[in-house]
């Protein structure tokens, strides 16, 4: 893929332009335009036309690199660039540092000391061998010499070393122990030949070394020249110049131009870096302040204020603050729950204690009442037994009553018959008495006639006596007879009066008898009615006695059932009394437990009371 250098990113003029734009307010029109561009660029990128997308992204960056749009566009350009690198280099996509690394490696390739990397470097001094040899010290010293010194040293060495070796061989007093191999080969030759040989060999070695060093230096010079050429804009200076040094000079001038151009950029970058350093410093201070704030919040949470909420901020402290908030949140709801629950439990326990207390009292009372009830039930049972007996007795009496009523009824029937006879007899007697009374009446009337006749006879006799008296003696006998008649008439009158009195007595008594008979008759009639009513009553009584007998039979059988039921009831009541007794003791235990619970809940409440949750 194309690796875009992105001149718009780095050129100082753009930076200046962008920083000017920083002060512009982000107008809605501008935003719409940038948004439109961004969306278009993204569609192109999604469609695979990354070149066109890059152009649009770059335009967004050029218009406003510090807005959200510009930032996004820059990010998009960076990622397209990364993907491009990834495709060319056939390595996984990495962070932008890949670009820096490739640049760094290029720099290292062309750096003046690059070849030295093949020599052991200072960093390898501490190899496991661990012995800084004389050779390494020498090479390090050599590497630190300037190029002029090195050239001078090589020239001096090429001139002096053969002469010195020849001189040493010629002036040597005896074979030297340091060169045993030469000594062994020199035993047969003369010292002059040895000197020539050594001098020549040394000269060859020295010249060879000098040529090798010169070649290396020339190669480095070429490399530097090429690098300078590359740095200076890629114009091939070698084609226009005589040698490497001239080319290098030209290229260095180019570089100087480039450096001039880049100085401002570097200065800008330095400013940016300073800003970055400032930002980092502020960031650090902010982080410290946030950490202190967080600690203060934690401190107040520790002392019981669970209502604290640390404001959310960016960075590690922010994440820790968020975790702290979440933890305190959970703890807050937990403690709130504990508070609520313990308060409720405490209230409930108190009320339960009262309830259970009254329950215990009630159970106690119930137990006593049940004892009484049990006694009552026993009494009822006994009463039922007695009722049963009485009922049976009553039934027997009722049966007797029924029988008595029946026999009474029979007797009454006979009585009614007798009464009828009496009534008939009385009626007959009454009639006879009436006739007697009438006869007496008739006799009385006859007597009155007799009395009349006697009075007339008396009067006549009296008159006759008077008449006789007048006639004297010859009427005497008549007067006597008249006197006799008169006395007889008197006697008849007296007898008639006596009879009259007797008849009156008879009449009075007859009237009394009649009255008595009338009374008797009406009494007999009334008696008959009473007897008849009594008979009916006795019939009703019989019926009632039979009913009573039936009811009593029912009652008797019911009382048997009642007796059984009351036995069951008494057993049940006994069981209930036991249960009530158990309930009372259990309630007491519950009261004790509740008391303990209340104490514990109060402890819990005092433990959580320092925590504020509202």
């Amino acid at each position, binding site marked *: 893929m194309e690796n875009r250098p992105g001149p718009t990113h780095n050129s100082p003029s753009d930076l200046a332009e962008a920083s000017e734009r920083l002060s512009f307010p*982000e107008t809605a029109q501008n*935003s719409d335009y940038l*948004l439109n561009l*961004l*969306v278009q*660029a*993204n*569609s192109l*990128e*999604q469609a695979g036309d990354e070149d066109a997308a890059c152009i649009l992204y770059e335009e967004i960056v050029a218009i406003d690199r510090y*807005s*959200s*749009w510009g*930032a*996004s566009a*820059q*990010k*998009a350009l*960076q*990622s397209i660039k990364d993907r491009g690198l990834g495709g060319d280099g056939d390595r996984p996509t990495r962070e932008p540092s890949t670009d820096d690394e490739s640049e760094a490696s290029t720099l290292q390739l062309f750096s003046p000391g690059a070849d030295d990397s093949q020599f052991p470097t200072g960093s390898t001094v501490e190899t496991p061998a661990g012995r800084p040899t004389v050779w390494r010290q020498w090479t390090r010293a050599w590497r630190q010499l300037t190029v002029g010194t090195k050239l001078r040293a090589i020239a001096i060495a090429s001139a002096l070393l053969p002469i010195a070796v020849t001189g040493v061989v010629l002036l040597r007093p005896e074979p030297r122990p340091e060169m045993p191999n030469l000594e062994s080969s020199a035993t047969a030759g003369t010292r002059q030949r040895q000197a020539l040989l050594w001098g020549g060999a040394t000269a060859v070695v020295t010249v060879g070394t000098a040529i090798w060093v010169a070649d290396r230096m020339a190669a480095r010079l070429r490399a530097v020249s090429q690098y300078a050429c590359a740095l200076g804009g890629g114009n091939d200076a070698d084609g226009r110049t005589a040698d490497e040094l001239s080319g290098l000079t030209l290229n260095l001038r180019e570089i100087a131009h480039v450096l001039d151009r880049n100085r401002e950029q570097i200065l800008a970058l330095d400013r940016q870096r300073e800003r970055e350093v400032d930002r980092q410093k502020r960031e650090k201070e902010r982080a410290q302040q946030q950490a202190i704030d967080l600690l203060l919040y934690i401190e107040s949470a520790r002392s019981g204020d669970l209502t604290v909420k640390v404001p*959310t*901020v*960016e*960075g*590690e402290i*922010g*994440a820790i603050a*968020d*975790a702290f*908030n*979440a933890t305190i949140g959970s703890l807050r709801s937990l403690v709130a729950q504990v508070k609520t629950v313990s308060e409720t439990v405490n209230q409930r326990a108190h009320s339960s204690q009262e309830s259970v207390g009254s329950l215990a009292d009630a159970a106690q009372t119930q137990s006593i009442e049940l004892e009484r009830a049990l006694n009552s039930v026993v009494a009822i049972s006994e009463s039922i037994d007695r009722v049963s007996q009485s009922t049976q007795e009553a039934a027997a009496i009722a049966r007797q009553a029924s029988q008595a009523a029946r026999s009474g009824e029979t007797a009454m029937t006979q009585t009614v018959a007798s009464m009828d006879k009496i009534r008939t007899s009385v009626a007959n007697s009454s009639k006879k008495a009436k006739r007697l009374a009438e006869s007496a009446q008739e006799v009385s009337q006859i007597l009155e006639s007799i009395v009349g006749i006697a009075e007339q006879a008396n009067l006549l006799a009296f008159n006759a006596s008077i008449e006789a008296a007048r006639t004297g003696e010859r009427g005497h006998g008549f007067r006597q007879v008249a006197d006799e008649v008169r006395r007889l008439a008197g006697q008849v009158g007296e007898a008639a009066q006596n009879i009259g009195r007797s008849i009156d007595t008879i009449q009075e008594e007859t009237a009394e008898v009649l009255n008595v008979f009338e009374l008797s008759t009406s009494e007999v009639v009334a008696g008959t009615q009473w007897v008849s009513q009594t008979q009916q009553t006795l019939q009703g009584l019989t019926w009632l006695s039979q009913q009573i007998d039936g009811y009593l039979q029912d009652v008797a059988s019911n009382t048997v059932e009642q007796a059984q039921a009351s036995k069951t009831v008494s057993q049940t009541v006994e069981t209930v009394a036991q249960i009530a007794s158990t309930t009372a003791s259990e309630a007491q235990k519950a009261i004790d437990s509740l008391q303990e619970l209340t104490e514990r809940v109060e402890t819990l409440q005092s433990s959580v009371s320092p925590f504020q949750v509202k």
Partner: protein
Amino acid sequence: MKNVFVVEDGQTEQTMIKALLNHAGFKVDVASDADEAWDWLQKNTLPDLIVLDIVMPGKSGLELCRMIQEDEKMKDIPVIFCSSKSEEFDRFWALRQGAKAYIVKPYAPKELIDTVYAHIR
């Protein structure tokens, strides 16, 4: 059409996310803070994905994410954080809250859309 619900307090960011996702073919609803978002979630058809900012006034996106994760009906909705908190630490913590992905602002539009595509249910 898939629904994406965006909770973001920045007006510009909100507009940008909405435009990008609309253009990518999603129906987008937005809320400006966590409480508004929670109300919206109670009253409307549940979305297929939720994009959350972290730092917002009132409740943070992290809190809202935890509320969503604890809700029986909402816990299966994938959540993506989209925040300027760029440190690895923040990413770690945000993902620990049950989010599926974490995008750092500023983001490349493609990154946002690819991430939404990758996680939408």
